[in-house]
Every structure is written in structure tokens, then in C-alpha cells.
């Protein structure tokens, strides 16, 4: 105990309705593998999440690197030598492999950005991996992402390494490879926390063990003191016989209830099965071998060919609506995201699919609904204070029971259940198993997908093991054993993945770092084409005066577009940029009548004002967690008010000297455009090449994963808001150099323009990516359009129509491209 590298003491963590961890203490010693065991939802992942800083405990202390913490930030944990490999890789999807690895490494281990690519290639080579450092995370498979996270953890030379179900996505060869790495680390006295539910692995590599059940420690000690069976019993909490109901008697002679004929879809092909009423069939396999996709296809999600018959009648699998109508009820594993209506009551959740029956007259009848709800949950022991309690407030087990009650109320003929006991405590499990068996006995065909082979063994009459989208084995009767199921699943992987370095070389598309620049090229081309076309109509378009005005105007759009880009990239939106521009022109207009020194003071003050607005926006969003759109809308209106108070009517024209000075051109190019372009390049560099830029992209791409990677998402959002305030103030200054007056009512339309600019620049409107250089090109194009309109004899309304249409078209195109790409992958 003296030599513990990581100690967790008295950790308690509650989620709404669930006590995930209850006074848990674990001490991990150097040079040993400490296995943390338990069923799904026992609290293992929460525990290591707390150690790694991605979950904040309610109480307890974390001891790491000789210090004690009540809570720890992910970055701080990494800096103190803790490296973690999550069960689902926590890598923000829009980053490149290189970006992700650099972000994961602690400061002291991070190589210089220049040459980092080669360093990473060498590191991968040393480990026997062949992964392109320039590939985007979202284009990688789950397996590859896992290997990258492992590689990054190894590169950080940790003192504590946490592995959360590392072998789930790996084949036997890769598992062997991982165990060899673990041996090396043990030799260097590294402490290893190993989470798994594969008992043989524990026996093979672990020295110490801690077993969790329903958030409590139920066993700890030295692995060698236990037999495999004893460990299983500790995990499950009772002997297997008492957990599971009796199976169906000999198969009743009957017509098949459910028949699936040569069904194919993304991830699986040519699957056929037939199921009698009263039977429970299990779907098994290593994660990612098509079993999930197959189950979802039966629920009406994404099959491409094949047929399904229920009681001999063909059922369309086009959408969940047609399958539901045919009596197929589907309970997805992601209860919160895909099955429940979290904030709505138990009653509303149970009644949801049976609204027609609950409201026979077309109008709601509370009493009838209560009666039906009671009937539905009868015998299920749903623990809830009232039927009006939001379902989110119940425990995982009670939530699942509510969903099962709902399914039963609809008198289904076929029930599809994905991970029925995920996050369900041990007591409720038993009831759920009994419920499923009783439902089957009443003549329903039940299809269960589970990652837990013990569960399948105990519950199912027949188990189908998937491999690479096909049926690897079908086990029936006494062959349905945990050993046979895992055996068939694991055996199958040998074929698919021979060696670790067999990463298929993928077709190289345009690297993401360059995609923005390609977009910029297209936009510049469009600008020139439009310019030429306009010149044919009116040659005055290319007069030096007009071009100079056009370029100066473009710089306003470029700057305000960059402001919007940074905010959108971090997952927000800023509706106050137009108002900041108005306020800036007003503020600077009070300084236009003095000398240059006085004017410079005004410029500084204007920028400070922009910074202030950005600070307010940023704090409203990060501290008070206001939605960005509402926060910036409120500030926007307040700022315009301030601008109007300062200057009720436009005025404050600058002296000629100052106008001349700020209107300087360099070889026909206005100084302000040069400034705008320099700022664009600078921001492009920051986004693409620096740690801050990686943080921005990660935060916008996936806040939860970014936080796990050690990025402080609120800080990134605050920085983006500050930068947006300053850039919008700069845009206001540039606008003043063109008009020479302060006008509180100007600039509002520029908010729309800023959004248009980033959308046509190809930045992701969901956050995470975007090129500042493409925004600059978009600014140029938009101003050229505005400018060309008058030469083409079109009214001002076209400016709005074109911008609106641009946003819609530019935003829809990537969506269509994605649909088509997906369609192609299915083929």
C-alpha cells in the first residue's frame, strides 16, 4: 500500500436516480496490473473516469503522483503521468491523427510541431502500427482509433496506465501485442488499471483485483487466491441458476412466427433465420461485426435487400413505422437517446405507442391513461413515487421496466431488445429476465442482442454468433454456453484481422488540412468569373475606384466572417457581431476629429470595447450556460441601445487627414484589405498548427470527447468569444474607414453576411472545422456580388435572396454528399 501510484478513497458519484459509485476505495500499486471487474453498469467506467478527471465525483479523494485532489482536471491528470484508453476512444472526430496524439500528450512529452509528423510515424513504426498521421479520426475504424489511443498513451510514458475494456475491439493477435506492451511497462514499474469482463485475461495478466457490483466494492484481493468460478460469482452476485428463468420446453410444433430471408444491409449480408413463437434468440459477436446493424434493420433501420415475414406476411423494413404496424417492437440499447422520452412522465412514456387506444374519442382521458399504465407495469415493480414522475429520474432498471411495459402494452408479436440489462442493477436483472421469458411463453418471438455471453447462455434458446457481417455459428440447446459463444466470436476474428499492422491503406482523399484551401480556390475562381461577367455588362466595374471600394468592403466581411468562424468552430454562434460593428463605428467616430495620436487612442478603446462584449458573451455562455444564440441576441440588443444612446443620429465624420491616412492603398490594394488578409493567415495558422487551434477544433467537434482529451471546453468557448469581439470591433473600424461616420443603425445585416461567409467557406456549421483562408475568399466573393448587383441592374433585394439561397445551398450540399457516400458504402 505504501507504494501506491494511484489511490481513490471513499469515492461516491450519483447520477439522477442512480448511485453509480458508493464509497469506493481502490489503491493501485506500481509494477502491477490491477483488474477492476464487474457487470455492465457496475460503475467501472465511472470509477476510472473519476481517476482520469473526465467525471467529477460527489465526494472522495483522488491520490495521484503524491498529491491528493477532491477533483482533478483531465489535463492535470495527464500531466501527472496518468494515461487512459477509453472503452470508446475519446478522440474528437474532426481532428487528424497527429492533432489528436499531440493533444493527448502531456506538455513535457510533446514534440515540436515541426517534425511531429515524422516523430509520430516513427513512433507508430516502433509499435508496429501503420496508420497515416494525416488521416482524419472520423475516417478511421473503431479498432484503429483504439490503437491510436493506446499508442498515444504509450508515447506519454505514463506512471499509471488505465485500460478500459481494451480488448473489446481487438483481435487475438492485437490482444497479444497489447499484453506484450503491458509486460514492458510493468518492467518499468508502471501501475496498470485493467477493466474487463473477460475472466481469462484477468487470470493471465492481473495481480490484484477489485470487484464492483451496483456501485459498491464487493470483493478485493489477490487474483491468485480466486478460481475463475469464484470470480464470476463475485461479479454476478449469485449463482447463475437462480438468476435465469427456465428455458422453453421442447420446441412447440408451430408455424414460424418470424422469418428473415437473406437480409443484407450496411455491415451484414445474407442473414436468414426463423423463429417460433415462444422462443428467445440471442445475437452475439465481437463488437462491430454486424449484429447490431442486423437487429436495427429488423426494427426498420437501414436494410438494403432481403425480406422479413411475420406470421407468413411480408413486412416492409423501410422505416420503423411499418415494422411497428406489423407488431414488431424494438427497444434500442441507447435508452436515453433512442427509446425514452426523458423529461416526460412514466405515464406518457408507457402510453406513447398506444395513444390511439388511450384516446379513443380523440381527446385525452387522464383516468383511462392511469388505468392502462397500471395494467402495463403490473408485476414489474417499477420503483417510482408517482406515475407523473419524469422517467429520467428513475434508476436504470426501472427505466428499462417502463420500456418493457410499454412494449407489452402494444401486444407485440416480435420483441427486439438491444442490451436489455445495460446499466441495470443485479436485482432488476432477474426481474427483466423473468419478464422476457414470460413474454415469450405468452407466444411472442424475442430477439435479444447482448455483449454479455453469460446473459445469452442463461436466457436464450438459440444464439447466433456474427462475424464480419455473417453468421459464424448457430448454437442451440445445450450448446448455448458462455464458452461456446465467446469461443465462436473470438475464433472468428482471427480471419478478419491477421496482424496489427494490416491497416488497409485507404484511398487518399484531399487531406482535411487542405480541403479549406481548395474551397478558397473555388471561391476565388467564382469571384473572378463573376467580375469578368459583370465587366462585360458594364466596364465601369473594373475602374480602379470601384475595385478599391470593393476590396475595402470585402475586408469588413472577411473580418466579421473570421469572428463568426471562431465561435462556430467551437460549437456556438454569435448574433452580436453586427451590433459590435455598429458600436465600434460609433465609438471611433468620437476620435476622428483630433490628431493621429488621439485617433490611435480611439482605435485602442474600440478594440477594448469589442473585447468587453466578447467577455460578456463568453461568460454568459460558459458561466451561466445560456445557449449562445440567446446570450448573443440579448447582448446584441443591449449594445445597439448603447450605440444609439451615444449617437442618436449618424455623425462624427473624420477629418480629411485621417481619412486619407487610413484609406492608404499599397499598389492599388487598400491597407485595410492587407490587414484583413494578414489576420486571416494568422488565424489560419493558429487553427491549423497550434495547440490552441487543436483545442478549438476538438471542443467544437465533440465537447465530451474533447474534455476527456484534456481540452477545457469552456475556456475554448470563452477565448473564441473574446476573439470574435475583437475581430468584430476591427471590422467596425474598417467600416468606419470607408464611411467616415459613426452610425448606430449600420452593421446589422453583417450578422447574416458573417454566417453566409462561413457557410460558403465550407466550415462545418456543427463546429469542429473550417478554414480562415476560405472565409477570406468567401468575403471577397460576397462583396463582389453586392458590388456587381448595381452594375447588373439588380435591386438590393437580390443581395438578401442570394445570401439566403447561398446559405441553404452551401449547407445542403455536404449533406447530400454524405448521403451519397453512405449509399455507396452500403453497396
Amino acid at each position, binding site marked *: 500500500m505504501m507504494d501506491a501510484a494511484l489511490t481513490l478513497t471513499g469515492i461516491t458519484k450519483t447520477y*439522477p436516480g442512480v448511485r453509480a459509485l458508493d464509497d469506493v476505495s481502490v489503491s493501485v500499486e506500481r509494477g502491477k496490473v490491477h483488474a477492476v471487474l464487474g457487470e455492465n*453498469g457496475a460503475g467501472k*467506467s*465511472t470509477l476510472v473516469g473519476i481517476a482520469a*478527471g473526465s*467525471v*467529477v465525483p460527489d465526494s472522495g479523494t483522488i491520490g495521484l503522483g503524491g498529491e491528493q485532489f477532491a477533483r482533478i482536471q483531465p489535463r492535470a491528470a495527464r500531466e501527472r503521468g496518468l494515461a487512459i484508453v477509453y472503452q*470508446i476512444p475519446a478522440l474528437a472526430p474532426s481532428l487528424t491523427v497527429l492533432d489528436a496524439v499531440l493533444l493527448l500528450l502531456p506538455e513535457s512529452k510533446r514534440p515540436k510541431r515541426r517534425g511531429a509528423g515524422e516523430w509520430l510515424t516513427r513512433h507508430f513504426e516502433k509499435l508496429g502500427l501503420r496508420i497515416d498521421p494525416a488521416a482524419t479520426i472520423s475516417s478511421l475504424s473503431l479498432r484503429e482509433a483504439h490503437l491510436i489511443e493506446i499508442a498515444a498513451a504509450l508515447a506519454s510514458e505514463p506512471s499509471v496506465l488505465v485500460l478500459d475494456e481494451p480488448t473489446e475491439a481487438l483481435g487475438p493477435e492485437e490482444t497479444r501485442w497489447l499484453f506484450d506492451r503491458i509486460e514492458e511497462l510493468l518492467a518499468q514499474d508502471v501501475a496498470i488499471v485493467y477493466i474487463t469482463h473477460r475472466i481469462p485475461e484477468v487470470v493471465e495478466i492481473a495481480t490484484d483485483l477489485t470487484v464492483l457490483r*451496483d*456501485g459498491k466494492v464487493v470483493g478485493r484481493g489477490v487474483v491468485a487466491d480466486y478460481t475463475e468460478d469464484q470470480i464470476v460469482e463475485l461479479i454476478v452476485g449469485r449463482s447463475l441458476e437462480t438468476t435465469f428463468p427456465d428455458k422453453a420446453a421442447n420446441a412447440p410444433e408451430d408455424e414460424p412466427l418470424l422469418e428473415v430471408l437473406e437480409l443484407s444491409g450496411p455491415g451484414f449480408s445474407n442473414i436468414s433465420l426463423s423463429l417460433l413463437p415462444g422462443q428467445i434468440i440471442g445475437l452475439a459477436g465481437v463488437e462491430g461485426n454486424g449484429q447490431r446493424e442486423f437487429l436495427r434493420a429488423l426494427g426498420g433501420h437501414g436494410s438494403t435487400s432481403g425480406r422479413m415475414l411475420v406470421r407468413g406476411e411480408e413486412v416492409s423494413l423501410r*422505416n*420503423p*413505422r411499418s415494422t411497428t404496424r406489423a407488431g414488431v417492437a424494438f427497444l*434500442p440499447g441507447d435508452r436515453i*437517446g433512442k*427509446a425514452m*422520452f*426523458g*423529461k*416526460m412522465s412514466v405515464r406518457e412514456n408507457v402510453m406513447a*405507442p398506444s*395513444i*390511439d387506444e388511450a384516446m379513443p374519442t*380523440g381527446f*385525452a382521458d387522464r383516468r383511462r391513461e*392511469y388505468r392502462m399504465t397500471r395494467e402495463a407495469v403490473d408485476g414489474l*415493480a417499477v420503483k417510482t*413515487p*408517482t*406515475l*407523473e414522475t419524469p422517467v429520467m429520474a*428513475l434508476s436504470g432498471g*426501472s427505466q428499462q421496466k417502463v420500456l418493457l411495459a410499454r412494449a407489452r402494452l402494444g401486444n407485440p408479436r416480435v420483441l427486439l431488445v438491444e442490451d436489455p440489462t445495460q446499466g441495470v442493477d443485479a*436485482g*432488476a436483472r*432477474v426481474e427483466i429476465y423473468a419478464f422476457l421469458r414470460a413474454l415469450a411463453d405468452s407466444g411472442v418471438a424475442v430477439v435479444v442482442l447482448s455483449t454479455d455471453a453469460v446473459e445469452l447462455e442463461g436466457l436464450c434458446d438459440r444464439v447466433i454468433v456474427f462475424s464480419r457481417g455473417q453468421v459464424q455459428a448457430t448454437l442451440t440447446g445445450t450448446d448455448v454456453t458462455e464458452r461456446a459463444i465467446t469461443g465462436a466470436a473470438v475464433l472468428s476474428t482471427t480471419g478478419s484481422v491477421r496482424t496489427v499492422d494490416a491497416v488497409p491503406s485507404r484511398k487518399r482523399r484531399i487531406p482535411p488540412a487542405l480541403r479549406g484551401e481548395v474551397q478558397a480556390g473555388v471561391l476565388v475562381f467564382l469571384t473572378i468569373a463573376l467580375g469578368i461577367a459583370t465587366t462585360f455588362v458594364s466596364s465601369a466595374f473594373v475602374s480602379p475606384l470601384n475595385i478599391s471600394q470593393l476590396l475595402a468592403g470585402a475586408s469588413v466581411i472577411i473580418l466579421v466572417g473570421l469572428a463568426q468562424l471562431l465561435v462556430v468552430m467551437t460549437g456556438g454562434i454569435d*448574433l452580436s457581431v453586427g451590433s459590435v460593428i455598429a458600436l465600434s463605428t460609433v465609438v471611433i467616430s468620437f476620435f476622428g476629429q483630433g490628431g493621429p495620436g488621439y485617433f490611435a487612442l480611439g482605435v485602442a478603446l474600440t478594440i477594448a470595447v469589442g473585447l468587453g462584449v466578447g467577455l460578456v458573451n463568453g461568460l*454568459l455562455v460558459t458561466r*451561466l450556460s445560456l445557449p449562445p444564440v*440567446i446570450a448573443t*441576441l*440579448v447582448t446584441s*440588443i443591449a449594445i445597439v*441601445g448603447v450605440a*444609439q*444612446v451615444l449617437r442618436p443620429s449618424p455623425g462624427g465624420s473624420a477629418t480629411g487627414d485621417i481619412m486619407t491616412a487610413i484609406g492608404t492603398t499599397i499598389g492599388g490594394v487598400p491597407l485595410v484589405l492587407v490587414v484583413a488578409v494578414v489576420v486571416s493567415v494568422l488565424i489560419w495558422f493558429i487553427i491549423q498548427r497550434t495547440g490552441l487551434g487543436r483545442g478549438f477544433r476538438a471542443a467544437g467537434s465533440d465537447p*465530451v470527447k*474533447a474534455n476527456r482529451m484534456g481540452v477545457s471546453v*469552456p475556456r475554448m468557448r470563452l477565448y473564441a468569444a473574446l476573439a470574435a469581439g475583437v475581430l468584430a470591433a476591427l471590422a467596425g473600424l474598417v467600416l468606419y474607414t470607408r464611411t467616415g461616420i459613426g452610425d*448606430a443603425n449600420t452593421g446589422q445585416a453583417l450578422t447574416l453576411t458573417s454566417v453566409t461567409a462561413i457557410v460558403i467557406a465550407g466550415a462545418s*456549421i456543427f463546429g469542429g472545422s473550417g478554414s480562415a483562408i476560405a472565409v477570406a475568399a468567401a468575403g471577397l466573393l460576397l462583396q463582389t456580388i453586392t458590388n456587381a448587383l448595381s452594375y447588373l441592374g439588380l*435591386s438590393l*433585394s437580390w443581395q*438578401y*435572396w442570394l445570401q*439566403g439561397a447561398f446559405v*441553404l445551398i452551401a*449547407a445542403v450540399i455536404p*449533406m*447530400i454528399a454524405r448521403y451519397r457516400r453512405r449509399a455507396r458504402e452500403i453497396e
Partner: protein
Amino acid sequence: MSEQTTTSTAAPRTAPADRRSAVSEVLSWPGTRALIAVLALFAVSPLIAIGSVSPTAIVSMLPFAALIAIVAVGQTLVIQQGGLDLSIPGAVTLGALIAAKFGTEWDLATAIVVAIVGTSVFGLLSGIVIAYFGLPPLVVTIASNALMIGAVQAISGGFSEQSAKALSDFALSRLWGIPVLAFFAVGIVIIVHIVLKLTRLGRRFELVGENPRSAANIGISTRGYVISSYWLATMLGATTGVLLAGLLRLPTLTAGNDYLLPSIAAVVLGGTALTGGKGSVIGTALGALFLAQLGQLVQTFTQATAVQNIVQALIIGVGIVAQLQLGGSSARLKGLMRRSAVPTPNTSDSMRSEK
């Protein structure tokens, strides 16, 4: 919650009650807090400005409350579907312009129908793009707002129009001494409330808003509900515009800009969650009443619209923060009292971390 984590197999099978006691049931309605806020505001109004609750003052305030309520009912529907409609300014302005310009040129009734139905086409467009392409509502409605402003520019040529006398007579008329617009708004609110709370359609609408993926999984086709929310929001926005044209007689070409923030603020103050799902249009209407009375109060202090804007934005901001922080969950309220500090929201602190 009295959830047991240490479960025994012999779980107590005491049946849960149908609902809580009537008092706590009423207190848990989202509209209740809005009602308390409105009552409190009216109670302090005479302390701030003596004339602010006189019958004259209230009668002059009600038409504006009615307009905010109508436009905010539409916004409520969109927010229930997890979206936000930023095209309200365009819808209000376009509705007002068409009613004013063509109300004198054509038959008034035709002009009103064209103003409302014609404008709503843009809402239909937003809804279709959002439902079928999964684009963020913010971006789509910003774009459709631009399309409507473009239409305003094209139709008006940059000049405001005087609206027909019949329209302004109607908008300014009173029934039993109460502005007719108030009846109009109350009617719309009651109809929408009944449809939402008492019909199959309304229940499905709320289910889809709460979680479209869950709704799809139990066989509800979700797109129609999403599309109709944007369609109705724009239609109600245009209706507000028509009435505004009557009320103002000479609606400006930026008349709708003043309705975006109030439409959202009324929804938030009314207790409808921005994350979608169940909503309360009665709460929204009370929120609108609150905002209109607030505007009235601020007006008694200063005639400058700029200052009014600042003060209103600040108070609305505070109100939104308060409503969101208290967030409809009494647990959070209790937490505030117990620890005196707002629990800092943390992105990691989600259920997702336990996978």
C-alpha cells in the same frame, strides 16, 4: 428519489400513486412561475410608477402583449421541436408589408390571406430543409429570414406603406373596453393549448419534440411535426405582422426586428425548456404579458427607445438566466439554497460518461 441501489429480490410491490398532491402538481406547472412573476410585476408596478396599473395604462399595454403572445406561441412550437426560429423578424415585417400595401390596392381580406399564407411558405421551406437535411435550425432560419427581407425589399422598393383604414380600425377597436387584439391572442393561445394538451396530435407533437429518435422508434413519422412547427411559427409571425400593420398604421420595414428577442424571452419566461418537448403556451402568454408590462414600466422613465432597449435587454437577460438556472427542476432550486452556489455545469458530467 428513494431509489434503492442495494436491491433485494423481494422488492416491495407497493403501487406508486397516480400523481402528487394537487398543490405540488399546480406548483410544478411551468406556467405557475410565470404567473407568479406577472403578479409580482403588477404588484410592484405602482410602487415604481403610480400610473402604470391604471386602466388606461393597461388598456394601452394589452395590444402589445397580445402581439408578443401571438408571435411567441409560434416560437413555442418551434422550441418544443428543439429548434429556434430566427426568421421571426422577416415574417412579421413581410406580413405587415403585404397587408399594408395590398390592403389598399386589393380587397382587404384577400390581402390578409396572402400576407399570412404567402409568408408562411418561407416557414414551410425552413421546416422542410430542417426536417429532411438535418441542418441546424439557426442557420436555416437565418437564411429564410434573409429571403423574406429580400421579398420585403422587392415588394416595398424601400418605402413603407399606409395600411387600410378598416385594418387599423379593427386593430384599435375594443370590446367591453378591452382591446380586441387581446381577445384574439387569448383565442389563439386557448386553441393551441387544447390541441397540444388534449388531443392525440398534441401528445405526439410533444413526444416528437422531446426525443425525435425515440418517437421514430415507436413508429411515429416525425418530419411532419417538425415541418408544421416552422410553418405555423411563420404563419403566426405573419399574423402578428398583419395586426401590427393595423396598430401602427404605417409599419416600418424593420418593424419585425423588435419581435425576435421578446418571442424567445416570452417562451423561456413561460417555462418551456429550450431543449424541446413539453411546452406551455399559457406560460408563454404570461411571459408576453410580463414583457409588455415591463416595456410599459421602462417607458414611464424614459422616452428614448435606445435606453428602453438597453434596460429591457438587461432585464430579459436576467429573467432568462433566472428561469434557466432554476430550470424547472426543484432539485436545482433546493441545491441553490443548500450550497448557495450554482453548480457549475460541466460537459463531462453527463450520463454519457457511463457507457
